[in-house]
């Protein structure tokens, strides 16, 4: 019983830490500024350029805790709905979902090297040179 209580306490300590993570939306230095509504449209495939500059959104792989937090905080939907949305959109010929990366490091590398790229990290990621921070939540 004690072990169970300890496990629950431990889980309680972990879960708030994850859900409360600050999600920073970052971009390549050449990516133009976006407002939050535009960011949502970029991830839903409705906006592909801003002021003539191509915008390339990227995502972390399905199941990543940070991805779930990004979906909730910036796209106002859970990951299941996001996947369902893109499954339909993909198979009605309206585009492809954002490219996915397995790790934050891979994503950062891509965003840093790709003009127009937009991604996200949590604020524990200290190395953000060569990147622009677009939004920070909460």
């Amino acid at each position, binding site marked *: 019983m004690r072990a169970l209580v300890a496990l629950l306490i431990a889980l309680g300590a972990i879960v708030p830490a994850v859900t409360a993570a600050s999600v920073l939306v970052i971009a390549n230095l050449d990516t133009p500024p976006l407002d939050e509504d535009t960011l949502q449209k970029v991830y839903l495939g409705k906006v*592909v350029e801003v002021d003539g500059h191509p915008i390339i959104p990227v995502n972390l792989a399905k199941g990543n805790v940070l991805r779930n937090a990004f979906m909730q905080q910036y796209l106002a939907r859970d990951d299941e709905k996001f996947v369902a949305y893109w499954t339909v959109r993909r198979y009605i010929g309206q585009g*492809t979902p954002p490219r996915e990366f397995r790790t934050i490091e891979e994503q950062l590398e891509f965003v840093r090297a790709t003009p127009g790229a937009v991604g996200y990290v949590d604020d524990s990621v200290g190395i953000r040179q060569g990147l622009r921070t677009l939004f920070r939540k909460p």
Partner: protein
Amino acid sequence: MKSLVAQSLLCAALLASIHAIAAPEFAITGYGTLGYARSDEDFRYLRYIDRDGTLKADSLLGLQLEARFDPKWSATVQVVASAPRTRDSGYEAAIRWAFVGFRPENDWLLRFGRLRPPVLINTQNAEVGVTYDQARLPAEVYTLSPVYDVDGAAFTKTWTTAGAEIALDGYWGTTKINYRLPFQRFVDQQYFPEKIDLAGLVLSRSSETLLLRAGIHRATLMARGDVPFSQAIEPVSIPAPPPFGGDLYVRSGVADRIHVTVLTFGADWRLQDWRITGEYGQRIVNDVNYGVDSRSAYLTAARSVGKWTPYVTYARLLSGNEVRALYRALNGTPVPLAALGPPLFLPASYHSILADHVIAYDQHSTMLGASYSFSATSKVKIEWMRTRVGLVSALVDGDVHDKSFNVYSVSYSFAF
């Protein structure tokens, strides 16, 4: 097979030409359905469903190769393995889509190649079972056209307003098919080779809770083989007292093409856990009097309960008055005895044979089913459907009139 190779080469050439623009990013995705359906009758419904049960009515596997060159340019090729469209036996793999997509700006999407326009709400994703809850989209409406894929071009222009998006889709293209003629009393299954030119405009308004759609489409059918279209089936009077004389129905005139105007309206309303979907389709044919003039509609009410989504659907398909009257007249008029002998030597069943070439529909179905969603890309569905054939239905193989039957379906759909 030759056709598939030719299509593949065409796609490769298309992709190679785009490859020159930029290094592409490739993605291979896919979807599939393993579906089993059986009815409680010996005759076949939707080509395959009968008392013996079948996997062929709903099962398929699709693979999609996407190449994204930059946010504006992309290319897509989709191959689907399923029951064949040009015969009833075996399986086939066919290229459904092979198009290049170009978004010159946010509000425009242009596509060139083999593509599928948004005729009905689920036309484009009809084969991707995981994207809707029904075990089978209502055949009464979704068989408006025997084919929805065209080789041509399409555009989508989008306007964004507060809380809603308005889209105008336009397309034009051509396709070649083998049209399956009604298969009722005579055992020779026939496919009629046709070339179809298609063009249409579809206006949609979508918000978080409501999708409204209206479309007008124009199909021009041309016979590809040696046999042209007849203009009409009409009676000629043999001037003698019955049963020696009377009306003898004959094919008259030749139509080098048949124009079909199709009107579509649809609404999809989501309110919390509820989803109400309804669509209407009408085919208008003025060039010939033996089909496929019809009206059809369905209404589905579904409610999400956790991972379950139970639903009920009612669907109706009815041919135009003139077509049904012709079908009745052919079956109700005996062949005059004078026509059985020289010089015509017609069989006594001649009018029945002609009637079987009238593409007539009079059926309605009620579906009660549920889907269970394991995830956004994995879904199991079960359904009980009760279909009533009135005068006749070209979707049923057999001499079936004023009869109800049941179809039981279970399927698993996925995407990856």
